[in-house]
């Protein structure tokens, strides 16, 4: 117990102080926390429930658009804003910015949750690869449809409300979003850690292991599947709202509903770290972010080639991920008890 508290304390201190230890990397770290949220929420479907989804990006984009649209729409005419397209003729005052942002962020969490609840009954009835490809199509279709709606900027996207000038230091905006995204990551971790330790987590694992048996044991699998998706949608929506502001610009197919980038990153990070475990997606997100930044810095131009190679290598050679590999080597740490006779028998076989 002591080691764990030291670990958690260390991580929280790193997070809180990170803005000041690495001032040049604030944006990168905020981005990392967003990736952590994405990976952990993917794992609720992918690792714990066995429903590999490419579609959580749908909630990311919806959250992004709603947060900014509400923040703009509360004080200005949204159509005029997107029509102006970057010529900043509209500026929020300080109270306007924060009021709009709060309402926008809350809605960015709630609306995706409601959407997940509504479409969950249809979509979560699919199994296996049909679910995967259906959610992939869902994410990309949402991106294409958003690229056709004039109100939110169509294909050109929309600029996010600008941080009010002369409010605090220059760095305050990036620090603000840094702490918000760190807070979101911490809250997500705590909520999921608690959820996995309750009956909810056991039901999710039961659905992964054999859904039909779970049904026949009397578990209302559809209910739990939908609840799981709603939880993921909530956090991913919030992450999307934050990401819109961190990025400064929303573009439908590249940033908001970026299926082939963020949508696949979610899956990759969780697999890299070890899907189905609590820490796996977190570690996977960190390692993946380091790789990605390394690729973008040193392989610029070839970064997507390197990314594709990384995907293939991870999927083919390390499908169990880092935590899975550790689990193989040290099963005791995960609470698995190996019978002495079995262990000796295993050693002899080798």
């Amino acid at each position, binding site marked *: 117990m002591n080691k764990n508290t030291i670990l958690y304390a260390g991580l929280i201190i790193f997070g809180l102080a990170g803005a000041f230890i690495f001032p040049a990397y604030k944006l990168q770290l905020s981005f990392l926390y967003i990736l952590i949220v994405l990976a952990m929420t993917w794992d609720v479907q992918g690792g714990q429930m066995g429903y*590999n989804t490419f579609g959580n990006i749908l909630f990311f984009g919806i959250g992004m658009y709603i947060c900014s649209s509400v923040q703009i729409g509360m004080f200005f005419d949204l159509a005029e804003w997107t029509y102006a397209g970057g010529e900043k003729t509209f500026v929020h005052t300080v109270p306007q910015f924060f009021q709009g942002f709060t309402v926008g962020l809350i809605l960015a969490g709630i609306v995706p949750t409601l959407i997940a609840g509504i479409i969950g009954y*249809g*979509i979560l*009835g*699919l*199994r*296996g*690869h*049909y679910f*995967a*490809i*259906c959610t*992939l*199509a*869902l994410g*990309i*279709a949402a991106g*294409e*449809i958003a*690229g*056709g709606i004039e109100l939110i900027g*169509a*294909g050109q996207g929309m600029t996010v409300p600008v941080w009010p000038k002369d409010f605090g230091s220059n760095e305050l905006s990036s620090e603000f979003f840094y702490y918000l995204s760190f807070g979101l990551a911490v809250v997500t971790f705590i909520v999921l850690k608690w959820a996995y330790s309750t009956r909810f987590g056991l039901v999710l694992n039961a659905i992964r292991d054999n859904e039909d048996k779970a049904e026949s044991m009397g578990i209302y699998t559809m209910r739990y599947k939908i609840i799981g998706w709603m939880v993921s949608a909530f956090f991913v929506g919030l992450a999307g709202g934050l990401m819109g502001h961190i990025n400064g610009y929303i573009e439908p197919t590249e940033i908001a509903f970026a299926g*082939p980038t963020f949508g*696949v990153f979610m*899956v*990759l990070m969780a*697999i890299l770290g070890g899907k189905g475990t609590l820490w796996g997606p977190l570690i996977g997100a960190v390692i993946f972010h380091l790789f990605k930044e390394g690729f973008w810095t040193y392989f610029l*131009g*070839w970064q*997507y*080639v390197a*990314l*594709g*190679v*990384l*995907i*293939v290598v991870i*999927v*083919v050679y390390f*499908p169990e991920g880092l935590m899975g590999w550790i689990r193989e080597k040290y099963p005791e740490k995960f609470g698995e008890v190996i019978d002495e006779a079995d262990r000796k028998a295993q050693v002899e076989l080798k």
Partner: protein
Amino acid sequence: MDFLIFQAPMLMVQATMDGLIIGTIFALVAYGMALQWGVMNIINIAQGELVIMGGYVGYGLYVLGIHPAFGVVLAPFIMYCVGWGLYKLVINKVVDRDLFISILATFGISILSQQLMNFAFGADVVVANSNFGTLMLFDNSVTLPKSKLFSAGVCIISAIILVIYMKKSKLGRAIRATAQNARAAKILGVDTEKVYAATFGINAALCGIAGACVAMTFTLHPYTGLPYTVRSFMIVIIAGLGNLPAVAVSGMGLGVFEEWSDYLLGTEFRIAAVFSLLVIILVWRRFKLARKREYLK
């Protein structure tokens, strides 16, 4: 939604004919996807990229001054080698594993190839002009480029050749045997490794032919591969594995649907309509099966 359909019914005839023709191209790609899904149990997300690669073969011929119609003959050979190489490098490690692993691995290959094609051919939207001329029907209100007719003919002939090959040749019988029961085929002396490689190569060759047709009739761009994959997946799940006439009919139906949505909803929603149709079909299928207490496996 406009009522153009009543004011200018000829537009709908145009859309239908365009749709039927483009549908044959989709059906060919779908046949390749059904082939490898049935035989090797993998879903190839890089199918669209293989199509675009075949298209670039045709475009390369055009740039060199040769008529791009020869791309239809050259592309399958080159793409067969590419497919065979891809199999030996990556796919043979994901064949006997979970289907999702194959989806992810081929996704990685697709991202890779998109970027490589971007380097090799640039990010411009290109077309390989075939200068076949245009047919005018119905008092010049319906235009039918002869290149489209040519593409449709090529795809139909390729499909027929493939069906005959699968029925009569030794490799075709070996492929069908492996699809039915891989273990039994192995016991009876079929080299399943070679069969898998050949199947993937044939799939790539089919995509190459389709791509060469696409180069002549539509446009090529390195990043427009994914819609082809989704269309072929849609056709396969509607038609079911192993049912070639259904693949042809669904392909043409999808083509017609796409052209109609292009006219009615606008071109910016064309891709959205295709992807949304997939979602709608899957959800509708799920509710229909749920009544029988089954699910799509």
